[in-house]
Structures are given as structure tokens and as C-alpha cells.
């Protein structure tokens, strides 16, 4: 079977790949958004602190005073364990705090990152104009904070982003798997439905399928109907061939027989008899060739039915009785009930008919053919010439005829057909000598 990839696998890979890409995008978006929020939050806190300090700047008796609210710095301690630095200045004159803390001169409500005492600080600056001793002076408050707390928060955010991305990926992958499987299910359903069919079922497949599969189903059904037509044509051809071969043969034989009854002279009679014999051989050959073709055809698609070998044998014996009676041949039938096997009814009937027909043909006048069935084993013994020991192995070969059949008409396919039918059913055909004196025995055994 030529396989090129798997739809399921391809679907899965693509969907999972898409999920991975989306998860990564989700991660990046979440991360950057959350980082933004975290940085803003820190800035907001710093601004609150700086603003509170700025509010507390006052002018008393021409002097600038700052009464830093306790909360202005303790609030920063509540948010994180970062180190805090501040500077309050008026113009270029430092008022209090860490005098060497950097700032952005002239700016109000700005935030930036700076270096101080070897660390990165997040800084904010706010300023306000104050009237000091008659002049307007700019008071600035700078508050800075190390970014340890922010770093922790960002790490937490990263972890959360990875977690969300991972969860999304897992869920999306599961979803992808479920989706892929359910998409592929109709394919499997159709395959199963077709596989379940019996060998002779050539009806169109009518299972409902998704619209994308419609062209495939149309092609499949077209193929099935072509096959059906082809098989029908073959069957018709076989029937036609049979008819065309047999009808003229029948005419010749009938006329020969009529003439035989009207003719007395021995040499004429002999000639007519030979003609009749030739016709019989041809028609037998044709019949068995057709049978053989049918067996070969059917063994590829065995129809399985529950069959009773005893019942089949009984039927065939009954049908052959008139013919056997012509030669005063009697059937001794012994069928024990029980057994039962699954097989192709037509093939089995064909095989049994061939074997009993053989027995009748090779039995001399006024003899007995024993037909016994035990379980799934059929044994037919005649009192004819029997199988020569040398021939036993080769008799089931195609067209082999025994060395002692003499003038009896036969094309040699009878045993072959029965043998092939037995093999097709995992059974066996065995030839042996009749234990009671002369004659041949054929045993058809089938597994249950």
C-alpha cells in the first residue's frame, strides 16, 4: 500500500503549530502589556509619594519648609522592599534629602530611569512654583526607587505569561487533536462501511459524507458501477459462450442419437457412436472449463454462509439417482447429523456434484456407491477400477486422468475443481483406495 503522509498527522501538526504560534503571540502580548502596567504602577506610586511631599512644602516667615508626610515614604515601603531616595530642592539650591540625587531641571511630572550610587533607579520629578519672599521660585521634588520590586513583579508576570501561554497551547492542542480526529472520522467511516460489505455487494455507497468528500464518493460509486457492469458483462459473456457452444453440440448429439436408432450397419453405428462420444467430450470439457473459471472467480470473494454438508450431499444424490439408475447403480447413503461450516454454497455444491458425477461415471453396472457424511467430512466410494497407486498424487493436477480410465469420457477437471474448492475453504481433498475390495474413495473434508 502506497502511503503518502497522513491527513490526521498533517492536520495535527498544522493545528498544533498554529496553536504554538498563537501561544507565543499571546505570551508576548500579555508580557508586554503586563510589564507596561507594572511599570506604570510603580511610576504612579512614586508620583503619589512625590506629590505628597510637594504638597507639604510651605513658606513660613520667608523661609521654605518641608514637612515630609510619613506616608509619603512609608507607602513606598508598603509596596515593595526597594531602597528609596529623595531630593527636595528650590531651583539649584538643595533643601533636603539626598542632595546628589539626579533630576531633570525644569521638568514637572516626568519619570525616567537613572543611575545613582551604582544602581538603576526609577525616578519621578514633580515641581511647583512658590512665592518666596516676593519672588516666584520653582520647588522640585525628586523621588527615586530601586527596581528590585519591579523586577520581581516582572518575573512573576513572565511566569504567568508562560503559564497562560502553556495552558492555551495545551488546550488548543487538545482541541486540535479532537478536531483533526473528528474531521478524519467520515473517511474512516466510509472505509469501514465499504470494507464490511460482502464480496458480491456492488451497490453504490450511500453513506452521508461532508461536501469535500462528495467528488471522491461520486468517483467511488462510478468505479463500483463500472466494476459491476464489467462483472455482469463477464457473467453474461460466460453464459453467452456456454449457450453458443452447447446449443450446436446439443443439436449434433440429438441428431446423431436419432440416426443411431435408425441405423443397423455396424460400421455406421460405430461412426455415429464415436461422433456422440466426441460431442460428449467437448461439452463436458466446456462445462468443466466454465465451472473451473467460476470456481477461480469465486474463491477470491468467498460468500460465507452456514452450510450443512450432509444436506448438500443428500440433494446431489437425489438428483443423480435417475442417471445412476440407468446403469443400475445404487447409492448407499449414510449421513450423520452434526457438523456445519461456513462456506460458499455454490462452490460446495459444485464440488460435491463433480465428485458424485465422477463416481457414477466410473462405476460399472450394478454396483453401489457409498456416500457417507460425518460432521464436515464427505466420503464417496465407488466399486470401479480404483486409483492406481502411482496416480494418486497427480490426479488432482489439472487435466490429469488416471491410467486406468480407459474409454470413459472425462476431461479430467472434476477432481481438480473439487480440490480447488476444498483448498479455498482451508479444507482438503484426499484420494484413497476403497477399503472394501476394489474401487476408489474420495474424501472432502472441510474445517468447521
Amino acid at each position, binding site marked *: 500500500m502506497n502511503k503518502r503522509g497522513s491527513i490526521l498527522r498533517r492536520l495535527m501538526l498544522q493545528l498544533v503549530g498554529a496553536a504554538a504560534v498563537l501561544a507565543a503571540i499571546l505570551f508576548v502580548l500579555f508580557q508586554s502589556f503586563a510589564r507596561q502596567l507594572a511599570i506604570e504602577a510603580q511610576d504612579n506610586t512614586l508620583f503619589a509619594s512625590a506629590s505628597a511631599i510637594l504638597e507639604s512644602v510651605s513658606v513660613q516667615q520667608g523661609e521654605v*519648609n*518641608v*514637612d*515630609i*508626610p*510619613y*506616608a*509619603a*515614604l*512609608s507607602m*513606598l*515601603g*508598603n509596596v515593595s*522592599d526597594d*531602597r*528609596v*531616595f*529623595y531630593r*527636595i530642592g528650590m531651583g539649584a539650591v538643595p*533643601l*533636603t*534629602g539626598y542632595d546628589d540625587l539626579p533630576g531633570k531641571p525644569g521638568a514637572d511630572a516626568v519619570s525616567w530611569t537613572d543611575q545613582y*550610587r*551604582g*544602581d538603576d533607579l526609577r525616578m519621578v520629578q514633580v515641581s511647583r512654583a512658590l512665592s518666596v519672599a516676593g519672588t516666584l521660585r520653582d520647588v522640585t521634588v525628586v523621588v527615586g526607587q530601586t527596581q*528590585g520590586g519591579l523586577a520581581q513583579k516582572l518575573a512573576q508576570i513572565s511566569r504567568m505569561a508562560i503559564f497562560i501561554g502553556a495552558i492555551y497551547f495545551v488546550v488548543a492542542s487538545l482541541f486540535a487533536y479532537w478536531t483533526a480526529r473528528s474531521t478524519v472520522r467520515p473517511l474512516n467511516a466510509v472505509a469501514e462501511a465499504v470494507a464490511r460489505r460482502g464480496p458480491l455487494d456492488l451497490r453504490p455507497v450511500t453513506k452521508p459524507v461532508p461536501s469535500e468528500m462528495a467528488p471522491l464518493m461520486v468517483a467511488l460509486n462510478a468505479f463500483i458501477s463500472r466494476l459491476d457492469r464489467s462483472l455482469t458483462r463477464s457473467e453474461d459473456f460466460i453464459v453467452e459462450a456456454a449457450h453458443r457452444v452447447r446449443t450446436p453440440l446439443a443439436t449434433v448429439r440429438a441428431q446423431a442419437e436419432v440416426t443411431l436408432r435408425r441405423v443397423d450397419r455396424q460400421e455406421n453405428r460405430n461412426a455415429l457412436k464415436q461422433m456422440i462420444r466426441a460431442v460428449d467430450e467437448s461439452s463436458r470439457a466446456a462445462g468443466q472449463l466454465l465451472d473451473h473459471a467460476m470456481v477461480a472467480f469465486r474463491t477470491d470473494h468467498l460468500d460465507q454462509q452456514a452450510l450443512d454438508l450432509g444436506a448438500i450431499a443428500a440433494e446431489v444424490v437425489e438428483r443423480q439417482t435417475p442417471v445412476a439408475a440407468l446403469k443400475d447403480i445404487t447409492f448407499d447413503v449414510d449421513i450423520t447429523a452434526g457438523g456445519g461450516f461456513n462456506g460458499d454454497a455454490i462452490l460446495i455444491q459444485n464440488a460435491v456434484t463433480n465428485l458424485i458425477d465422477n463416481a457414477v461415471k466410473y462405476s460399472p453396472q450394478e454396483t453401489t456407491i457409498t456416500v457417507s457424511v460425518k460432521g464436515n467430512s464427505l466420503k464417496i466410494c465407488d466399486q470401479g477400477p480404483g486409483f492406481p497407486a502411482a496416480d494418486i498424487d497427480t490426479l488432482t493436477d489439472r487435466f490429469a486422468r488416471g491410467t486406468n480410465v480407459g474409454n470413459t469420457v472425462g476431461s479430467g477437471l472434476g477432481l481438480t475443481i473439487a480440490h480447488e474448492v476444498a483448498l479455498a475453504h482451508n479444507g482438503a481433498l484426499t484420494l484413497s483406495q476403497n477399503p472394501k475390495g476394489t474401487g476408489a474413495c474420495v474424501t472432502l473434508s472441510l474445517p468447521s
Partner: protein
Amino acid sequence: MRHFIFAILMWMPVAVFAFEIESEALFEAENETARLRIISSTDEAVFAPIIAQFQSLNPSISVYYVVASSAEISKAISQENEAFDIAISSAMDLQTKLANDGFALQHISAATALVPAWGNWRNSVFTFSQEPATFVLSNAAFEGLEMPRTRQDLISLLRAQPDRFDGKIGTYDVRTSGLGYLFATQDSRTSETFWRLTELMGSLGAKLYCCSSQMIEDVSTGKIAIAYNVLGSYAAARTDLADAVTIVAPQDYTAMMLRTAVILKTATAPDVAGLFVDHLLRGAWGAPPAKEVAEYTRPIPLGPGLLVFLDRLKRRQFLAEWTNAIEQ
């Protein structure tokens, strides 16, 4: 402990210091592999057993223990870059500033994990002792009088009996006592009674002290009847005065000073310093507390808030107001 000889009270001038020290001692170990230098505001006598225990567990480590005032400690480290491994101080605001200004090393261990969140700032400042600010009252002076349990009680009492308590109240001079300044400033932001009480004390001619010991002595002798915002642990340590004084932890709230240890950036052997700090912390936090902590006790919070009252303008402002209130 008998494995080695160690010299306590060996007066060895190890170095010349540019700041004022109160005492120094070297606890020497045999086969010394490391020397721990500790600068502390706590008396050596108090710390000696702790050091001894430490050395029994770490026999090859010597300990050089220098005692100085908390202000001097801060100056030594931040301004004079004196090389010490550990700074131990009762001035939690100064310790916090040291850590904030980058003079501390971070230390994380199983022992530091024992410290509650309010007692650990940035894994740099660890508390190992919490001591309350209390009223210390003279039993004799309060004969027949109900002792005040809250600040409001105290205010009512002083208002009711001004003559009895005139000149009989003592408290820290916050201009010179770091601990006094800490207690006073925390008081001022915690309760609305502080300024009223301060004015009241000022009007009654309160005596100002530099140190807890003197204040407690004077209470025991009856020279003063009430010592306000005094470190309760020192009072409690004076078991000899147990009959004479009563220590009252104010029930409206009792501020708790956190005595802290900081490993300094200048430590030459930070691991050894860590060992000592761990030992200290395990001793403090290893076992569940001996007695339940009353719900009105409030540990003063560690954090940048403590920097506020260290601000020069803020301090100037506060001292001006306080002086105004207390000196009438």
C-alpha cells in the same frame, strides 16, 4: 568550651578609631581562621553569652566586639567607612538608613526565613529583639493612687493632680537621645495624645534625660514619679528595683523598638558574618515565644518610612516644635 582559651576583657587596642567608642573586647579563638568584627550599641555584658555560645559552635572564629552609641555607629559606617562585618543597634531608623544607602549586604538563609515579614527589611536588616516603650512608675509615689494604663489615663492624671506631679516627670531629651527621638516621633504620628502630653509634661517642668539607666534609677529613688516612653527592657533588667518600680506597657498601644543586626558591605568575611547573624536569629526566633504578645503592642515598622524623621528639615521642624512644647 574548655577546648580553647579565650581572653575576655583583654584590652587590646586593635585600631585607632575616628569615632567615639565606649568599649571594645576581643573574644579570641584558638587556631583562629577568621575574625568577626562587630560594632554594636548593646553592652558587651549582654552579648557575651551569645558570643560564647557562637564560639562553642564555631571554635575557630574570633569575635572583636566594639560598643558605641547608635549615632556614632551610623557615622562610623556611612561617613568614615570603618571596616566592620556586622552592625548591631537599637536605632532601627539609622540601621534602615544604612541599608537604604547601600552599606548593607543581603543575607538569606534558613535562619532568616524564621524572621517574620515585619522584622526583615530587604533581607538586610533583621530584628532579633523587640523592646517596648513603657511608663515606669514609682510604687512609692503612686501609693493610694491608681496607676495610669493608657496615655489618656496619664493625661487625665496629670491634669487632675498637677501639684503632685510637678517636676516629677521624666522623659528622654529627644535632641540628644536617638532612642528618645525614635519613640517620640513614632508616638507623634501614631496617636493624637502625643503633643498634648508633651505640652502637659512641659508645663509640669518635666526633667529630660539622656539615658534610660539614669531615668530608671531616679524613679526607683522616687526622685521622679513617672518616666515616660522609657525602654521597658532596661527597666525589667533591673531586677533589684522590682519592688520599687512598676513597668506599665500602655494599653492604648505600646510601641516596640526593634533591635536589629545588619551585615555590612565592608565585611571581609560575609559568610562568617552570616553564620553569626543566623545564630542570633535562631536564638531569637528558633523557638516559639515564651509568652503571648499582647495585641496592643505595635512593632515600629521597618522601611523607608523611617527615613522621614531622619530628614534634616523634618527633624529641625520636629525638634523646634518639641522644644517649644517641653520647655515652658
